[in-house]
């Protein structure tokens, strides 16, 4: 297990193939310092889970990765490109390589499922995905097991189905990285487990790397290859689920205890 201090040594030795590199990122909202020097590397085919309490800055962090928010200081590199320095065209390209699953699914509610999936495809003909539009839509929907919902409106879908369609929309441009913002929040345990299994299946089939923001310990345990605890704006602790669960650090122990008690009761 690593604590924050160990990241200084990582800074200069990060392997070149890291898909995402975050160095000493800081972000404030007025007087409220949310991120105070966060560090992270994400490597191909890795599932990194960022755990943290509500309001700890998890969602802010992944929004900074696709420049939905600007960082105050630090460095964010995605696929080797510095996100804060990109012009709009280059940023749009990077955004096609980074899928983003929103907490509330964020399906366009004036469009059918088919139109939701068609939307990013039509915006990016330069992606030249090689098949025709309709085939890509069916392929994406089949991969999340929702082929029969193609002509439904988002309002006609259940919470779990919405999450699946959102995942299909994220997958349709075949990104190399997927960012998940609370993928299981608001779902019942059975549906949440289905979504977790789907995320694992997608990672196997599409060879994606994933950064998962959650406070669902079950989700983190099943899916993570590495976990980071975001506390007080820094990556307080890092390691596999087993390493963190057996940590002697009082803050980590308290954190696990609190999150687990919330998840189970």
């Amino acid at each position, binding site marked *: 297990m690593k604590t924050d201090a160990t990241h200084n040594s990582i800074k200069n030795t990060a392997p070149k193939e890291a898909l995402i590199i975050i160095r000493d990122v800081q972000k404030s909202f007025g007087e409220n310092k949310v991120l105070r020097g966060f560090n992270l590397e994400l490597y191909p085919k890795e599932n990194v889970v960022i755990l943290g309490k509500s309001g700890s800055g998890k969602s802010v962090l992944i929004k900074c990765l696709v420049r939905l928010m600007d960082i105050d200081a630090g460095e964010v590199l995605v696929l080797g490109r510095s996100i804060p320095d990109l012009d709009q065209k280059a940023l*749009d390209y990077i955004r*096609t390589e980074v899928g983003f699953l*929103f907490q509330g699914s*964020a399906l366009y509610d004036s469009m059918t499922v088919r139109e939701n999936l068609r939307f*990013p495809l039509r915006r990016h003909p330069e992606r030249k995905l090689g098949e025709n539009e309709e085939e890509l839509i069916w392929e994406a929907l089949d991969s999340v097991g929702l082929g029969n919902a193609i002509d439904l409106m988002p309002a006609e879908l259940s919470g779990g189905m919405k999450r699946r369609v959102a995942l299909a929309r994220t997958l349709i*441009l075949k990104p190399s990285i997927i960012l998940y913002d609370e993928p299981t929040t608001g779902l019942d345990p059975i549906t949440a487990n289905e979504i977790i299994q789907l995320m694992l299946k997608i990672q196997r089939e599409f060879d994606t790397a994933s950064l998962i923001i959650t406070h669902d310990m079950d989700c983190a345990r099943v899916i993570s290859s590495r976990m980071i605890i975001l506390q007080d704006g820094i990556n307080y602790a890092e390691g596999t689920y087993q390493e963190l669960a057996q940590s002697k650090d009082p803050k980590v122990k308290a954190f696990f205890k609190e999150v687990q008690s919330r998840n189970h009761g």
Partner: protein
Amino acid sequence: MNTLIKNLLEFLDETGKISAFAGRFFVQAFRRPFEWRELLHQCYVIGYSSLFLVCATGFIMGLVLTLQVRPTMIEFGAVSYMPNMVGIAFVREIGPMITALICAGKIGSSIGAELGSMKVTEQIDAMEVSGTNPFKYLVVTRIWACILMLPLLVVMADTVGLLGSYIIESTKGEVTMTLYFSRAFGVMSFGDIIPATVKSFFFGLVIGTVGCYKGYHSQKGTKGVGTAANTAVVLSSLLLFVVDFLAVLVADIFYTI
């Protein structure tokens, strides 16, 4: 006193932000890529779906105006000038203003609520991370559609209003449709039509900009969506009167009213 100053400063701050938002619209309105498909869809939504309401209101206004004014015109022995009076009143003021107020209520609120809802459910963020410019796709198309559709709706309101007026005139007096409309249009000049048409474009700009601004900057969940829809109507209605006053002032410089 402090509250008054605070409210005034807030109003000026809001006006400044809306002006900056309108400026952003003008910067992007003429830049490629153009969202033609969405623009056409919005023209349909804004224009066609408002048509019945605008026509019904215009028609009733034509009926009411004629019924209200006719006795006075008879008293002055000027009933034969009814078509001229109604025609000028409709084309210059009643048609554009009634249409704009109806649209502020119907279109302004629906744009505010729709974009507000998209904002709080992160649909706008989703659009952005899919590499689409949401301002161009959602805002520019809606404002353009308002600018283009408002003058057409005004023409419809004017026409139907005059038709309503003609129905009352032909029922109460003896006038043919040809005579009525030839008298109504015979007295009109470019000084009546051009300023009214130009201000209709500006009315569209105001309704579209305020509705989009309020929705696009909506916050605080579903309550914020309601507030966005409500303030879009209130603010755009107020600004419509201001624009109308300015339009009349400017028209006065170029044309003798």
